[in-house]
């Protein structure tokens, strides 16, 4: 329980009067101090009586959108708190969030108005499970205050707690959704070798393998249909390494892990596919391209030469593509349609003009053109991009975009210390097929 400033001042006055009364043996001062003490004690008793009536009136109902999720999943939580607040009291309710979740957005704290009847407060927010295990919502914190005192109480009894949330672990190196067997990868093309996935269904032609007939579909349409299975090919992924800038701080431990993982992947590729291609960049600067290298020792020596923070002659800072500029212009046009304010309209008009001029003069970045040339010169259907994600990531976006344009799957490897919500944001921004941490 804390005294507010008014109560603190009155308490100090009472202490001074008591001291004066004792030292000077003055009955009037004692009486004045006594009345002040009676008033404060009375208010104290009243405050506690009202506080406990508020606590007794609290009722909590909490629901989760899902109770069993994987680590990194986002869950919607809705808590309804019913409380009766007496007049001249202020009440604040704050949800007690489990330690191993991160709040994404929403409201976790509300204030209640002093009303004669009970009122319902609704706390609605989204959380992301950061750790696996069983999380338990442990109740609420109630803050009560009036003119003289304030107090906070943690409501942890069973009736304020629960439900529990089970979070299953996710593997740091989960396999991608497409079925992949050792040394092969399924592709959406015809091939001599068949994979396990079904690429298409077509009508039966004479000579087709009878084992490929889809009997269920054939019975439904009264015509024979056959399955076309995916092809299988064996290509090593193109490894792209984004080195940190020498002129800025970077996490050294994470960089060492990244180097070890790149070396491991290079060795695996050479042993499995007999060759590997590695593109070394640092921001929007291509440093080295090792194409179709078969010699492991040469690979490792090249990596040893290049794998350290590099100097960047060119820097990107939120470099925008033509599509980014077009989407900005579209957003401005939408805002112009809904804004009635003349000054805002004028501002939006000049902003649109600026973006329009920039779009007209926008050319492909030299780095992007170099990436396109590198990707077209190599045969790859997958790219594994290693980066520390420190600083601007426009160059990573450029690489991912060009790879997706060339129908190459993009797998991004990033430090494990990056928060899952940020990881999800990066994945959405880059459009990567998978986003994993390097251990």
């Amino acid at each position: 329980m804390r005294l507010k400033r008014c109560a603190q001042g009155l308490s100090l006055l009472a202490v001074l009067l008591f001291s004066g009364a004792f030292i000077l043996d003055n009955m009037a001062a004692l009486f004045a101090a006594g009345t002040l003490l009676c008033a404060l004690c009375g208010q104290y008793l009243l405050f506690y009586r009202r506080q406990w009536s508020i606590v007794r009136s609290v009722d909590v109902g909490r629901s989760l959108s899902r109770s069993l999720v994987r680590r990194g999943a986002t869950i919607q939580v809705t808590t309804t708190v019913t409380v009766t607040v007496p007049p001249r009291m202020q009440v604040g309710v704050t949800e007690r969030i489990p330690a191993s979740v991160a709040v994404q957005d929403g409201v976790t704290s509300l204030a209640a108005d002093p009303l004669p009847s009970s009122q319902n407060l609704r706390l609605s927010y989204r959380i992301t499970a950061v750790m696996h295990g069983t999380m338990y919502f442990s109740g609420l914190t109630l803050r009560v205050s009036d003119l003289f005192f304030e107090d906070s109480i943690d409501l942890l009894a069973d009736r304020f707690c629960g439900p529990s949330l089970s979070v299953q672990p996710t593997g740091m190196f989960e396999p991608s959704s497409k079925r992949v067997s050792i040394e092969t990868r399924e592709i959406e093309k015809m091939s001599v070798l068949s994979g396990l996935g079904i690429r298409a269904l077509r009508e039966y032609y004479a000579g087709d393998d009878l084992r490929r007939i889809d009997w269920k579909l054939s019975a439904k349409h009264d015509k024979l249909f056959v399955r076309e299975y995916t092809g299988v090919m064996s290509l090593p992924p193109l490894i792209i390494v984004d080195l940190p800038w020498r002129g800025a701080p970077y996490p050294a431990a994470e960089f060492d892990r990244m180097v070890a993982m790149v070396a491991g992947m290079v060795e695996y590729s050479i042993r499995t596919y007999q060759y590997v291609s590695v593109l070394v960049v640092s921001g929007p600067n291509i440093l080295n391209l090792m194409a179709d290298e078969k010699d492991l020792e040469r690979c490792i020596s090249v990596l040893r030469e290049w794998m350290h923070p590099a100097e960047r002659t060119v820097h990107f800072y939120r470099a925008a593509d033509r599509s980014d500029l077009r989407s900005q212009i579209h957003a401005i046009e939408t805002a112009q349609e809904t804004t009635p304010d003349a000054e805002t309209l004028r501002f939006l008009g000049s902003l649109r003009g600026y973006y329009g001029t920039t779009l007209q003069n926008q050319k492909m970045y030299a780095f992007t053109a170099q990436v396109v040339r590198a990707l077209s010169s190599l045969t790859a259907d997958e790219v594994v991009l290693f980066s520390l994600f420190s600083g601007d990531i426009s160059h990573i976006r450029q690489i991912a975009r060009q790879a997706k344009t060339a129908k190459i799957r993009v797998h991004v490897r990033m430090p494990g210390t990056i928060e899952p919500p940020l990881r999800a944001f990066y994945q959405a921004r880059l459009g990567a097929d998978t986003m994993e941490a390097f251990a």
Partner: protein
Amino acid sequence: MVIGALGAAVTAHSTAGYLCLLLLIPVGGLLFAVPGWHGRIFYLACSGELLILACGALTIWAGLFTAWMLAGVVLLELGMLEGKEDFGVFMLFCCVTLVLAAVIQVSDHVLVPLILLAAGAGLVLFFQDIRNYQLRKKYTGAVP
């Protein structure tokens, strides 16, 4: 409050009575001249306490009457004198201060009333704390 101060000044038969009238000025000024001031309740209480002190120095019953009037003014200003419960609390305050004034009136020195006051406040706070602890145990989920 004005009546109490006037009465004390008139019955005092000394120049100290004029102090009571003089101390009415800051109280009246805070009450009427600056109605919208945020911190005026605290200063009203402080200046009122000085008035209680001055009136109480003349006669304890004048001080008691002034204390009641000051409490009523402060509670009215805070909006804490509206319902039956609020009046009940105010009457309880008046009774307690009446007892306090009676004890002070019959005592010669400060020590005994001071000890009684401290003991009374201590007992009240002690029992309140125990009750508070029991309720906290119940609602914070501890095993009773």
